[in-house]
């Protein structure tokens, strides 16, 4: 396998009984790439993402994430990736500092590493004064940035972001994407799902899943050209408009 490929899957398939949720998908994601994983509701995105994160075994096909095999080395994958979703990312009833400590311990960082990285993180996020505040009491925008930083405190090769900006105000959404840009420019691979199609424009490459298969995969510019569309929104409608599932 090429060292530059942080994610590489070939014929990845997941069946539940007679239902094929993910139907033989293949793609590679490079180091430092921001890869947008789009699809209509019910297209199979979540199932595919669960396999990539080592949470679900594929029925067929193979793949590797961060250098580990998704079928046989699921535990190693979990230790070497970051994950953040809109629904769950931080414990609301713990303070900012307690959340950082909890996640860094789960990821196996030493006390010294935790202290060092936490100090850098609080400084970068300008959150030093909020260290001892309960997460439930900090504004949404700060929570988002903190959640991303906590999910990447062990400096994983790849971070999976599952609709990280749903319902978030336009300013916070943009600040969040600046964090993604910075992580990517520092060599971290970012695998992200979103329903905001303007955010799809920020990705280096986009895949669009329809009914379990990848129907389109390219840079936003190339997709717009291929489908003769002005925006990614139009591309998405054109590609996903014929979906059978999710109706």
């Amino acid at each position, binding site marked *: 396998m090429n060292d530059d490929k942080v994610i590489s899957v070939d014929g990845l398939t997941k069946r539940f009984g007679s239902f094929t949720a993910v139907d033989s998908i293949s793609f590679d994601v490079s180091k430092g790439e921001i890869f947008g994983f789009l699809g209509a509701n019910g297209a199979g995105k979540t199932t595919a993402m669960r396999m990539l994160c080592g949470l679900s075994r594929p029925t067929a096909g193979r793949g590797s994430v961060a250098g580990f095999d998704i079928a046989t080395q699921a535990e190693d994958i979990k230790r070497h990736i970051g994950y953040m979703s809109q629904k769950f990312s931080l414990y609301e009833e713990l303070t900012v500092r307690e959340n950082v400590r909890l996640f860094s311990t789960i990821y196996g960082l030493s006390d010294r590493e935790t202290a060092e990285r936490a100090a850098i993180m609080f400084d970068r996020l300008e959150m030093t004064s909020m260290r001892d505040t309960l997460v439930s009491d900090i504004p*949404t925008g700060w929570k988002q940035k903190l959640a991303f930083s906590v999910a990447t405190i062990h400096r994983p090769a790849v971070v999976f972001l599952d609709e990280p900006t749903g319902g978030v105000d336009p300013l916070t959404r943009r600040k969040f994407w600046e964090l993604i840009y910075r992580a990517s420019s520092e060599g971290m691979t970012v695998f992200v799902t979103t329903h905001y199609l303007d955010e799809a424009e920020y990705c280096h490459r986009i895949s669009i899943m329809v009914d379990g298969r990848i129907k389109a995969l390219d840079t936003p510019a190339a997709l717009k050209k291929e489908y003769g569309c002005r925006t*990614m929104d139009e591309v*998405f409608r054109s590609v996903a408009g014929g979906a059978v599932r999710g109706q």
Partner: protein
Amino acid sequence: MSGCAIQVRDVSKSYGSVKALDGVSLDVRPGEMFGLIGPDGAGKSSLYRIVATLQHPDAGSVAVDGLDVASAYRQVRDIIGYMPERFSLYPYLTVRENLEFFASLFGVSVQSGYDLIAPIFSQLERFPDRRAGALSGGMKQKLALSCALIHRPRILLLDEPTTGVDAVSRSEFWDMLATLRTQGITIMVSTSYMDEARLCDRIALIHNGRILDTDTPARLVASLDERLFDASAGDMYALLSQLRGYPGVTDCYTFGATLHVVADASFDPVAATAALTARGLSCVSITPAHGDIEDLFIKLMGHES
């Protein structure tokens, strides 16, 4: 006051130390599609619960069709159809049972309201005996809307009906709303998707419990009076960092495939293009841009903080 479908006056609501609504006033006119646009935590759902007679405000008043929501709540409930943000149907009842249940709550038959819901409900007719909990997201949404409409309400209250829904289903849902609007139903719909604002007759922008502005989408966009430019370059992140500190630039943020640059009169896009190219950026392009609701929201949020 007569003439308003929904009249909200100086409404405030707190939960402990959290001020969810802070002196909110707005008028929704009969027959219009009124959008309440704002992010999570802006206070949208609190306002819906108050208008839907489910919660009292700490201060202020709300009238629906001229009826006070506190004293005339029973009459108000017959007039409104309310679809809350969270899935509100009984998951263990079937499609048909849910519809019959909601019709019986209002003392009407399913038949009497059927022509109104037919365009929405037609896709669900294929599986009347499926449990609501086993429906897909898009189908649940159609059933919930059918249940909210079965008693022929004059006013429809929809709290974030398109959250978490993909772009294709979102656009189908808005088509359904447009059809309902032609039947004379007043619709108050909330969303955190700024691009849905343009589908409304009038909108209110809400943030941190306060209304930032209310008007037609076109007039609100026209109120953006700054100079605005689209900027792009080979390395967008480097371009963003460079433009943020550039003389004459008051704000710069990502906007789809480009950056939006808000600038004062001293900013010269031609000179800036040359200067940024000289600093090593490739393919620099800076051209005049048209703003939209999202630009306005960012601007108004900036004024607040």
